[in-house]
């Protein structure tokens, strides 16, 4: 007979408020609600993906108060009052793509696309901290994001493309 798990304690829901993509949001959630579920299920922001659900793959990466965070390994309540950027907040209001989104499109930085929101959000913070990273810095910078399709080559080029565009430089491909 299957064991039925009896909750050890009954916990009231709490109101968790934060700023997501420049918009004030709030939702009633249990303290155990993970940030990724808060975003996807309570705010209907389904761009951030659940890949491994064990803090390895980085598909759920969002930007929280200037840090790249794996939102599967943080409780929403820990982020009460925080300021977020998710993939939905990257493009301009008129639909103009962010340089990183453009880079991933131009450089074919994705195949299935599952890891892409996490890759872009991680690269977003990486470029804030280092405007013109070397290839090695890019590779170490996205080492917490797994892609099973591309072999990373075009992802690195996409980030280089965005770094050049954001710095007002012309993107030049390194010789093969």
């Amino acid at each position, binding site marked *: 007979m299957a064991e039925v798990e009896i*909750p*050890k*304690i*009954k*916990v009231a829901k*709490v109101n968790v408020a934060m700023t997501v993509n420049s918009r004030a949001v709030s939702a009633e959630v*249990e*303290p*155990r609600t*993970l940030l990724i579920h808060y975003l996807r299920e309570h705010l209907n922001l389904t761009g951030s993906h659940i890949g491994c*659900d*064990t*803090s*390895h793959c*980085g598909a759920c*990466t969002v930007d929280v108060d200037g*840090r*790249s*965070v*794996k939102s599967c*390994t*943080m*409780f929403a*309540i*820990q982020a009460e009052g925080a300021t977020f950027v998710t993939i939905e907040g990257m493009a301009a209001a008129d639909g103009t793509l962010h340089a990183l989104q453009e880079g991933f499109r131009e450089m074919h930085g994705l195949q299935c696309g599952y890891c892409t929101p996490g890759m872009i959000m*991680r690269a977003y913070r*990486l470029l804030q901290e280092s405007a013109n990273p070397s290839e090695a810095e890019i590779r*170490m*910078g996205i*080492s*917490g994001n797994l892609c099973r399709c591309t072999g990373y080559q075009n992802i690195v080029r996409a980030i280089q493309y965005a770094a050049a565009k954001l710095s007002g430089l012309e993107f030049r491909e390194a010789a093969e």
Partner: protein
Amino acid sequence: MIPGSFEYHRPSSLGEAVALLGRLDDARVLAGGHSLIPMMKLRLAQPNHLIDLGGVTELKGVRADGAEIAIGAMTTQHEVIASDTLTERVPILREAARQIADPQVRYLGTIGGNAANGDPGNDMPALMMALGATYVLRGPAGERQVAARDFYLGIYETALQSDEILAAIRIPAPPKPHGWAYEKLKRKVGDYATAAAAVVMTVLGGRVATCAIALTNVADRPMFAADASQAVIGTALGSQGLRQAADAVEAIAAPAEDGRGSAEYRTKMAGVTTRRALERAFARATS
């Protein structure tokens, strides 16, 4: 994976956190959460109460206090890497922190959580043993200090009592100049060490004057390798000294067989990483 239910508490001072920990039944403290939250998602941990230290600002930051460096337990690995004080005074910490997990995890993972967790795969314990660091523990009866070398008792078993919180780590800053190295053999980014060795040494007149070696993930706890450290002191770190140190390390290594390799292989790698760390530390001390 959904963790079990818990009540959430967010104290704003260490005193308040210690009081909550003493008063609440079945409570755990939450630091960066990158060990505890995965355990909770697997229901290997199911505390009734979670005391989040994220709002306790007094636990954050790096302070140089004369010959000693004090690091608040809630200082993140990202902040360790970015700290000018640590880069200048205790550079082995930066070198090691860069090899812990990945950038996202380092933004949240804390030095205190890494040190106090008691997982033999954590990297900070061996570093703190090599540096001769002291842990400042705060409990209901006040503060006490425990040497890192006396802190680790077994897997997830430490000298930290259930009503205590690790508040800070105090490190005697190594002299200038000194040599250091953290050699971590791992299969990929984010992996625990197959074997790793931390070395802090000083060299006088071409000979090793002081040396401390400690090991990560080659037993059920991090280990200070006293015999190996002693084996190289007074030598010019020639092939004989290196071999004696590696032999002494292999004699105390007792790793389990796992996905990283057989016990025999991981034992051998404890010797190899020790040898590499010694060579690199010696080169730095004499450059």
